[in-house]
């Protein structure tokens, strides 16, 4: 990829002109990325994604990038913006300075221009069995009622459920950059999300994948993943808690039980107070 110089971040007023410098890459034409620049007028509340759309709609329709929700929820607009992995829809251009440099996520292959290949991220994610696994398979497959969970038990893992699978943490992780086999912060963070969930009993099954030198123990604790995460998930913490769980077991002692069924014909007090539906008139 052509080298792109960083620029000190400083505010630019609305109505000003922004230089958008993008790493272009077309696999059919280019052997490496080449920078291309456009000028864009800064509008109120303009995000980097808005600026890219302005270029695509008004100046160069061939520019490729990926997005979906445009509100920091789907995780598909991850890019390397002014030297940091960020969500383009979540980054205001006015905070970045007169020159905004955009490149595809590091530690990922580029499919075209700013579109990273996220398939390895999803493969890693799938490899760690990211779903609730129980011993009582019959109940899990055809649940009779919900599993019991207190707010305290939810609090143990809830922050890790906010993961968007945007891959920014993988883009920031130095170990992912140097060690191809490393599972990476996203997948490992999600392992802990399930391990800490008291409805889950899958630690021993997942241990086959993550209790390995390229699993949880491959983490060098650089902490760059947690810094990059746009949702405040702390994958570095999750990996350390996962290591502890691999030694001493999950943080919950017993798996959550199924909520006991009410006796036949039981109605909650509120239900008893609710007015009955009138008899059918037809």
């Amino acid at each position: 990829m052509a080298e792109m110089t960083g620029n000190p971040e400083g505010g630019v007023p609305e109505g000003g002109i922004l230089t958008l410098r993008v790493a272009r890459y077309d696999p059919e034409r280019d052997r490496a990325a080449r920078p291309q620049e456009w000028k864009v007028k800064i509008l109120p509340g303009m995000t980097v994604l808005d600026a890219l759309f302005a270029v695509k709609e008004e100046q160069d329709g061939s520019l490729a990038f990926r997005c979906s929700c445009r509100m920091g929820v789907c995780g598909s607009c991850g890019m390397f913006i002014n030297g940091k992995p960020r969500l383009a829809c979540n980054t205001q251009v006015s905070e970045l300075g007169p020159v905004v440099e955009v490149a595809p996520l590091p530690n990922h292959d580029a499919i075209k221009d700013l579109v990273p290949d996220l398939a390895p991220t999803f493969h890693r994610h799938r490899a760690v069995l990211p779903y609730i696994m129980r011993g009582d398979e019959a109940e899990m497959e055809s649940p009779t009622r919900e599993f019991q969970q207190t707010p305290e038990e939810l609090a143990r893992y809830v922050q890790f459920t906010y993961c968007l699978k945007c891959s920014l943490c993988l883009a920031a992780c130095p170990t992912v950059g140097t060690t191809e086999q490393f599972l990476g912060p996203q997948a490992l963070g999600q392992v802990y999300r399930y391990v800490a969930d008291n409805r889950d009993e899958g630690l021993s099954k997942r241990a086959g994948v993550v209790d390995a030198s390229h699993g949880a123990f491959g983490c060098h604790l650089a902490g760059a993943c947690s810094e990059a995460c746009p949702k405040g998930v702390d994958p570095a913490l999750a990996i350390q808690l996962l290591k502890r769980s691999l030694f001493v077991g999950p943080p919950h002692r017993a798996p959550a039980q199924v909520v006991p069924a009410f006796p036949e014909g039981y109605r909650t007090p509120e239900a008893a107070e609710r007015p009955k539906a009138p008899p059918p008139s037809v």
Partner: protein
Amino acid sequence: MRESRLWALHLICGAGLLVLLSLHMGLMHYAGILALLGWAREPAMSFSSVVERGRGAAWASMYVLLLGFALYHGLYGLRGVLGEIWGTPRAVRFINTGVVIFGLAVLVYGVAVAVQAARH
């Protein structure tokens, strides 16, 4: 073996090394401080001290332990570094086998030397 157990062993060996190396430094290099604490001994490098250390079973066991801790701790680290450079499953198997064979060979040789010395 699971990585968590290998890693735990690595930490235990690190702690063991710390204890044994402190002991070594105290006995061999800071005899003056030990004397100040009221534990006066023969100079560490005197002929009789060297012979005594070579002969005693306690010393031999300590040397073997020190060798074992250092070997495991160091080779575990080396395996980690090599595994990150050549991470393919085949390379990892090769590195693991090489490290175990090398470690065992050095350990056996070291134990033989310590036992041999203790017997004379």
